[in-house]
């Protein structure tokens, strides 16, 4: 315990020293309208407002990345007249959610290599296949994963708009569909000038289930047998009540 605390202190000190020249050159302040998205029974998606201030000039790029998931992508093939799943590929570290927003089109802000270096843009996400059927084409499967996520509204199809107000203040809104995964979300904000990253800030917020919707999940995973019995009992009671109640009509 004590040791980890010391390590942490050292890390902070080192980070502080490293950050000094950057902080001196450029001020970047960022905050979010919420630190937590609560998934209640009435949840049907949410919006988070990101706002901040920076030195005049340059551009701001925002990347939001959801918790990583293990995903299997399958490809159907035409065999003897039927469409059947054949080839597959598994990705261990695919972000469940990915969204970027920028103050200008990305290609006008910096080179592709710069964005590859900071892993900004769907094309630069580093998730590699961890397993596959023989001969599966990694690029095609990766593209299919991204395409499906885009269709589900979980990956942004293009950069959203970061709006500047009065030269120094900026804001952008991130929308989350109802299918959003629970867990920590990393929000990275980059301030770029002349094609170079001047400063970067990171914020984290959480998507969590609360109330009844959280209780259901906890029970289902911690006491599956009890949960199953409850489910069956509810069904039996509902069926019996329905039959008994409606007889009187």
């Amino acid at each position, binding site marked *: 315990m004590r040791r980890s605390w010391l390590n942490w202190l050292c890390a902070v000190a080192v980070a502080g020293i490293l950050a000094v020249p950057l902080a001196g050159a450029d001020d970047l302040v960022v905050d979010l309208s919420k630190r937590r998205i609560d*998934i*209640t029974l*009435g*949840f*049907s*998606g949410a919006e988070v407002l990101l706002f901040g201030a920076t030195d005049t000039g340059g551009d701001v790029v925002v990347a939001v990345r959801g*918790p*990583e*998931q*293990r*995903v*299997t*992508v*399958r490809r*159907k*093939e*035409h*065999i003897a*007249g*039927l*469409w*059947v*799943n054949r080839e597959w590929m598994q990705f*261990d*570290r695919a972000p*469940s959610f990915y969204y970027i927003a920028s103050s200008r089109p990305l290609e006008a802000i910096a080179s592709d290599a710069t964005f590859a270096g900071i892993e900004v843009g769907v094309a630069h996400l580093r998730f590699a296949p961890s397993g596959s*059927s023989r001969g599966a084409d990694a690029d095609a499967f990766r593209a*299919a*994963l991204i*395409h*499906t*996520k885009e269709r589900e509204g979980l990956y942004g199809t293009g950069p959203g708009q970061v709006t500047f107000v009065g030269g120094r203040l900026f804001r952008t809104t991130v929308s989350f569909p*109802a*299918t959003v*995964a*629970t867990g920590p979300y990393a929000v990275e904000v980059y301030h770029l000038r002349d094609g170079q990253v001047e400063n970067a800030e990171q914020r984290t917020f959480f998507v969590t*289930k609360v109330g*009844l*919707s959280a209780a*259901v999940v906890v029970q*289902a*995973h911690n006491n*599956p*047998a009890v*949960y*199953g019995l*409850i*489910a*069956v009992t*509810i*069904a*039996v009671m*509902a*069926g*019996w*009540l*329905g*039959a008994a109640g*409606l*007889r009187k009509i």
Partner: protein
Amino acid sequence: MQVYLPIAQISVDVFVLLAMGAAVGFISSLFGVGGGFLITPLLIFIGIPPPVAVATQINQVVGAAVSGTVAHWRRGNIDFTMGWVLMVGTILGSTVGVTLFAMLQRAGQIDLVIVLMYIVFLGGIGSLMLVESLRALLRQRRAPGARFKLHQHNWLHGLPFKMRFRKSRLYISALLPLVLGFVTGVLIAMMGVGGGFFLVPSKIYLLGMPTTLAVGTSLFQTIFVAAYSTLLQAVQTQTVDILLAIVLLVGGLLGTQIGARIGPRLHGDQLRILLALLIVGVWLKLVIGATVTPDDLYSLQVVVPS
């Protein structure tokens, strides 16, 4: 009104779910089938992940079956002796089915087998029923009030271990319902359905049970089979969404009671034609789904949220 389903992890319209539950409850009570072969594709269609759809609909079937059984019990439409014998066969069959499922899964061919099983079973049963019931209807039109045999006698009636099923007015080998139950059990395990769509026609045509008794007895047996499956799913896959099940149940209750009231007014032959048309309809949809080029060849499955 949107509601968030905690296990399925999506938000859906309550009224869409209620309507779906009602439709399935209606069908379930009218035909003695759980309706799983109908509701699973519907749930997947509105965006519920397939494992959640399969596990949750089987939970809803428990309620629909209880409701239907109570209604049929009052009318004396259940042959309990037959029900218990079938159940022994079903439990044996589902145990074998689970093993087969695991074997095919390892071989990577489970999807193909499931699609083929649906196509073969639904196509075969649906077309046989349609032809037979249309023929029976025409025969009746020609000779109203004419008496004919309860059922045909064939080699099946020569099998040993004969047992008397008073309610169904049958004196047949206990092996027949045992084997039927066994096949149903395999279907339940492999296709993730209650098996009613196979059991009801088989009881009518193979065992020679009267249609109303076949329906009532099937519902009675389905209670136990579906409850067993729900528990298995809850423990093994944790994909039973209680909230989704409750909404479907509420809708289902209404449908079941409407079905149980309309059912007696319909003639057995009419019931059979309707069930046959329903099965053929689902079969057609499956054949089209399996043969027409899909919009997207790729599909995603989240294995574990890490």
